[in-house]
């Protein structure tokens, strides 16, 4: 078995790898015990697994971990903390923008990447950016409001 090094939330972490096809999501959740990125579909359809790779929102269920070597990976843990949340996290808290909150990782990570590119997005831009992030509980309206608040 070989080992790769992943830079996650600013720290180099060794990750044993016995299959080159293993998606990044499993390195983050299973090997590194992170709780931010969630497994929702493994098919690139729901967004629950979203992380930032070099600042861009990426589906970690599709990206092989081996291909993330040498790139900066940021997870929800690395975005902010309960005490010092990122502005998107703070807006989600203020709007109580989630019910079960399972989709929140993907929503927040996708929105944070959007705001980094476009600090004041229109509502249409927010909706289309989040078009492939699914929520089953029906928290959509609050989520849209939270992103708009963070991008105000």
């Amino acid at each position: 078995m070989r080992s790769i090094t992943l830079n996650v939330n600013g720290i180099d972490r060794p990750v044993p790898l016995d299959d080159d096809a293993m998606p990044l999501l499993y390195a983050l959740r299973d090997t590194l015990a992170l709780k931010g990125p969630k497994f929702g579909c493994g098919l690139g359809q729901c967004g629950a697994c979203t992380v930032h790779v070099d600042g861009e929102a990426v589906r970690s269920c599709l990206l092989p971990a081996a291909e993330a070597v040498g790139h900066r990976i940021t997870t929800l843990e690395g975005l902010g903390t309960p005490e010092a949340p990122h502005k998107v996290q703070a807006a989600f808290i203020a709007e109580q923008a989630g019910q079960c909150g399972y989709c929140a990782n993907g929503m927040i990570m996708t929105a944070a990447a959007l705001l980094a590119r476009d600090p004041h997005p229109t509502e249409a831009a927010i909706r289309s950016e989040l078009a492939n992030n699914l929520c089953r509980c029906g928290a959509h309206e609050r989520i849209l409001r939270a992103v708009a608040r963070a991008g105000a």
Partner: protein
Amino acid sequence: MSLSRRTLLRTATGLTVAFALPRAARASTKTVVSAEVDAYLAIAPDGAVTIYAGKVDLGTGARIALPQIVADELGADIARIALVEGDTVLTPDQGGTGGSTGIPVGAMTIRQAAATAREKLLGLAAAKLALPADALEAIDGEIRPRAGGAGVTFAALLAGADLDLKLDPKAKLKSPAEFRFIGKPLPRPDVRAKFTATHSYVQDHRVPGMLHGRVIRPPSQGAELLSVGETEIPGARVIRIRNFLGVVAATEWNAIRAARDLKTTWREVQTKASSDTLYTDIRATPVIREERLSGDGTPDFAAGRVLRASYAWPVQSHGSMGPSCAVADIRADGGTIWSASQGTHRMRRLFAGFLGLEPSKLRVIYMDGSGSYGTNGNDDAAADAALLSRAAGAPVRVQWSRQDELGWDPKGPPHILDLTGALDAAGSLTAWESIAYLPMNTPGLPGIPLLAVDAAGLAQAQGRSAGLLAGNADPPYSIPAHRTLIRWLDDTPWRPSNLRAPGKIANVFAVESFTDELAAAAGIDPLQFRLARMKHPRGAEVLRRAGAAMDWQSRPSPQQPDSTAKTLRGRGIAYVHYKQAENFVAMAMQVAVDRSTGGIRVERVICAHDCGLMINPDTVRAQVEGCILQTLSRTLFEETTYTGGRVTSTDWASYPILTMPDVPKLDIILIDRPNERPLGAGEAAAAPVAAALANAVFDATGIRLRRAPLTPARLKAAMA
């Protein structure tokens, strides 16, 4: 039960949620007997309060509502209330969390326990302060003289003693004028952690020595496993118990690979059933029994203008965003299961049965999962994990795949209603008959049969249980002659379970669409038509409020379409008195229909909602939002397709749901009735969504869609 809460709480890894600061929950040697106050409440020597709730928070906000109730009713300091949910050792069995009973049933028992405790504390303080009890009040963890002056803390009054009290069902409840927390939109205590990756979902739970498991389900329902190959994945192991087949491995990815690569052969059962023939299949299903749900007459359809219509609702999935997951550690002499089940106490009883364990030796600990809206795959995943754990001799975590979830979760059952109505010459509704075709629940079934248990050939109760499917199959209006019959069917294509507002969404879709059909036939405005027959003032109020917010113009539907317009707009309304006994909800919608594609865009939704006393209006609002958006999704997009005994809609491409661009503007009017009993908010607003949408489409196009989902293809075909 011999273990004390003190011992358990030290080792508990389950969910203890503190409202403000995490604090050690009170130790107690009391059992969880549901007639005792301390089954629900404990006051620690330092005065901190712990609530023990058998029902759980599914993202619904009970985690703030319960502290609000206890802070008011007990007079506790809300910053010092912790909550333990759904742990079978620590909490009383209050029944499963479902049917929108969390607040009206579960929380109200806890409220009564808090009132009982407060009365006791007032009595103790009266003796200590030499004042009559009615000159005292409980507030912020103290009993104080109402006239002012020094009080005495709960801690000092109890001096370390337990609340050794029988729950007094007559203990006086506070009046709304005395509420300080009930009725306030306080924020939920768990969302900060959820949004900063510090909250542990069951999907995140890990225990020492844990293996990852995956179950290989058969290619189609009822297939028999003939042979299994070996796994070449390092460290992986194949576990087979008759037709139950799984793998365990040290890492999750290796478990996935081992399951994916395993060679199997199965003998499949031939079946002709298909989603393409669903409704003919339902009509061909034997009726076990006909029941008269309501109405005492035999409506006469010999005279007047008679309308007949049939409405149909498909098989649907719970579609939880995170597929089901559980961790189980089952040993020869006992075990622990960590699960997001809506019924951990039920799980303990049933699992102890098929695992052959003493129920007292099995502990089920509730942990949050992805939202569930009824009994989804969580109980199945727990059975998978339990069987794999026992066979592997190690704790096992089972995470279902997306395909497992959409393919194998128990389904919301399909449903047909035949409706007949008669109008007299003056356009007045004289007679109504509903006939609903519904799968019959098995009386007394303790839980739905679990996939793994059947596959492994272990004993479990067989049958169907899908919730109260018949509710609202009858019209909520005064009609001279009416009857509603339920034809209970002997079968349904997929293993059913209760899925949000079971049966009621399809029933109200039919009843309230048909009401619109009758209003249109009579040439009467649909809102006026309803108000003229309204039985309840609270019902009339929600209808009026929704109409006013919509700026409802009184005219019959459909509007006269402009034959050149590319987009047709219309408005519709629907009403429910939930289960003819609970919430009053009116839903108005505005839609735009693209004439060339048949695509329906919901532009605006107005919901007027009366659920009696609201404990927390913001969590009520969130539930109503969820009811509306999830049911719009079910109405517009969702249908489980199947053929040859296998579900073919097993990902989000083949089972699409509502996305951000589809989300309409929501305008939710919450009517607070502090003097009425509190009702749940997790279901009722789902019921009128489909009808309001179909009525708006009719208003826009003159086309009546009677089969869900209301897809562009169906509308386009009807418009052609």
